[in-house]
């Protein structure tokens, strides 16, 4: 199946704006996969932590923040779902 990805930055290693993934993949597994294809430039979970680092990332499923989903990171994704991965930054110039 294909998951659509929307982001406010160029995700390293991601060709286009969608990703072919295995059926039933969870949001957590998708983030791990994106981290892998980015060659670890993107790390969504803080060291020894099980939650998305909210200082760095805003993650959504079909425009709803992931933490509003009942199963949160374990939410299974469906074909055509839109996953938002938005970067937060610290500071400016």
């Amino acid at each position: 199946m294909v998951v659509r990805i929307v982001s406010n930055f160029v995700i390293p290693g991601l060709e286009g704006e969608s990703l072919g993934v295995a059926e039933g993949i969870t949001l957590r597994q998708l983030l791990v996969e994106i981290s892998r294809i980015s060659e670890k430039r993107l790390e969504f979970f803080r060291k020894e932590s099980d939650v998305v680092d909210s200082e760095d990332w805003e993650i959504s499923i079909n425009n709803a923040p992931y933490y509003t989903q009942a199963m949160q990171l374990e939410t299974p994704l469906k074909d055509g779902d839109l996953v938002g991965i938005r970067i937060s930054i610290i500071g400016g110039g």
Partner: protein
Amino acid sequence: MTTKKEYKVVGKSVERTDARPKVTGKARYAGDLVAPGMLHGKILRSPLAHANIVSIDTSKAKALPGVMGVITGRDFPGIPFGTRPDTRDTLPMPITKVHHFGEGVAAVAAIDEDTAEEALDLIKVEYEELPVVLTGADALKPDAPLVNEFMKSNICYTSDFMFGDVEKGFAEADHIREQAFTSQRVTVGFIEPHACLAEVDNSGRILLQGSKQSPYITWRHMCRALDIPLGNMRILNPFVGGAFSGKHDPMDVDFAAVKLAEITGRPVKIVLNYDEVLAAYRQRNAMDARLRLGVKKNGQITALYAENILEGGPISGIGPFNVYYFGAFLNIPYKIPAIEYHGKLVYANRAPCGTVRGQEVVLAQFCLDSLLHMVGEDIGIDPVEIRAINAVTDNWHCANGIVCDISGLPECIERSAAKIGWKESRKNRPDGRGIGFSCASHPSGPRLGGHFGSAVMLKLMEAGKVIVTHGGTEIGQGANTVFCQMAAEELGLPYEDIIQGVSDSDTTIFDSGMFGDRCTYWDGNATIAAARDLKKQLAEIIAPELKARPEDIEFADGRVFVRDNPQQGMDFLRAVRRAYYEKGAPLYGRGYWAATDIDIVDWKTGKGNLAHGLDFIATGMELDVDRETGKVTLLRGVHGDDAGQPINPAMLEGQVCGGSAHMTGHCLWEESLYDEKGQALNYTWRDYKQPTALDVPEYFVEHVHTHDPYGPFGAKGAGEASSCSTLAAIANGIYDAVGVRITDLPITPEKILAALKAKEGK
């Protein structure tokens, strides 16, 4: 936003809040701080620009009497930090290899500075030297050595933007010109070197007092790299002796002081020498750019193509912003219907870059405004005229989506040209005399995402005076003064009754940082909101006594009264005491502001309405060029400046003139030099020259007074636009004077002479 027209405090050149302590030497900077039992720290620096660290033996240093602690990179958790989660590539101190000359590899805390220095000599570091990458072109070679161990390429960051129909724009052009431009490494140029005092209390909580531009940026980065919760660190800013974008990030000096304080259990202060700063700390990116500009016969720009490689040293720092800013803000100050941009930030083994005042809009504008002058000459349009033709006007929608609410740029151009005597100079001028023009614009703080609001708190004291605390940082630009002015204006109090509080993360509301001309605008609006909140609270307490509704209570001239019956009122002080004595009410006004109606930066496309408060400037620079020596003498600099409503005109002029003076050295002579092995060559003030009062022209500022609809009292940010306009104004002036066009900075006498000889066929 306010509709008030007649101001009592705003718009007046009141004395700065920090003027007297600074001029009398009473201001306490980080280097002045002392603490009981304090140790002194020193940092051992790499003599090589790129090398593996084979081993570090600190045993002899540790054994030296008076040495209380020695650390290396291995004493830190090994967690990289960085401005963006996708470019975290920086360690507190290196572990496996050094990346640039002068990088700190170990640090010592001792009972005095001499002992610490002596201990540095006893640390033995074994290096395995590696080939170096020095330039952007070197970095991109297929066989280039990798500079940063956290990245798999020397390309750190890219921006590729397409705004409008570029192909169509160039097809419609009557004339197209392309030109390459380069710019050199320059240092930032603040007066106070990096310094800090770190302490750790019995619970392990850290207190850092340092010379920081954006203390909460430092705080976030440090807690990440130290692997501690944000609540375990308190950061307190003393006076700061300038920053200009060179003090956002934590430096090894900050990390070393903290770690040494942790292991020794005593306060540790580290104050760098300026040689260290010039050799190994933040500089401006080197640039290799190429621009192509298309225009109609009437001078209207139809399209722009720009590509740009920024070499930023071995870490990303705030470099991604630099690449982004260069491209996104090509959309201002001229009406350009279509822009294509490709920018790269690459790693190299020179000192790490941050940026310098004006960010890389400075470099973009040097390229664009030089090229605009060249194109104008090609098609026979006067330099002033071609700028007026293309100048952004009110309600202009840029190709990438930026909406310019208010533009005084056309008037800025007109007034700067008139003041400098452009028309008259075309009739008669001495040999070697020229005038150059350039325009620029700088936003009042884009909305970058993450923590981006500003907040202010006003504490009303029983004495009737008000203490302002905010998360912005006074780094010499006058932020504290303008917030006090704004609070006084809104509260109807004398300026003298507003007191600036300390910047302390335990008591001050956090801020996203002091950069991008955002402070006056964002924190200023928050100041007004806080004052209104305070008035509302006081009005609710006083209204029953005045037999009025709270919303009918007015504050002005140190009094509180009923709007339609001013006699029915009381002194402000009496109202405050009523509140405290009869109610025991704590009177704290809280205000916050963020431009939530503009777009969060889209790093991928560069599109969106990125900022309010576009500050405009048109700079005219009159100069002489000595044909025998190539020496350039700047005579007069005129800045037509639209910063909206000036809050403090004298300080605004200082910002405008200072921003321009700052870039004078960049344009004409400053350069951080390196040898073929990446060793810095000119890292003392004897060898590296920055402009002094003797080098800058007489400046004139023509205030073009507009009213920004979103700015506090109609103000816009200020201080960076004149940096952005100065390089091209000087370059264009040199061309006007002697007919040679130098596109690789700095424009030294040697380059001018060589160009003159080439022109004359010698």
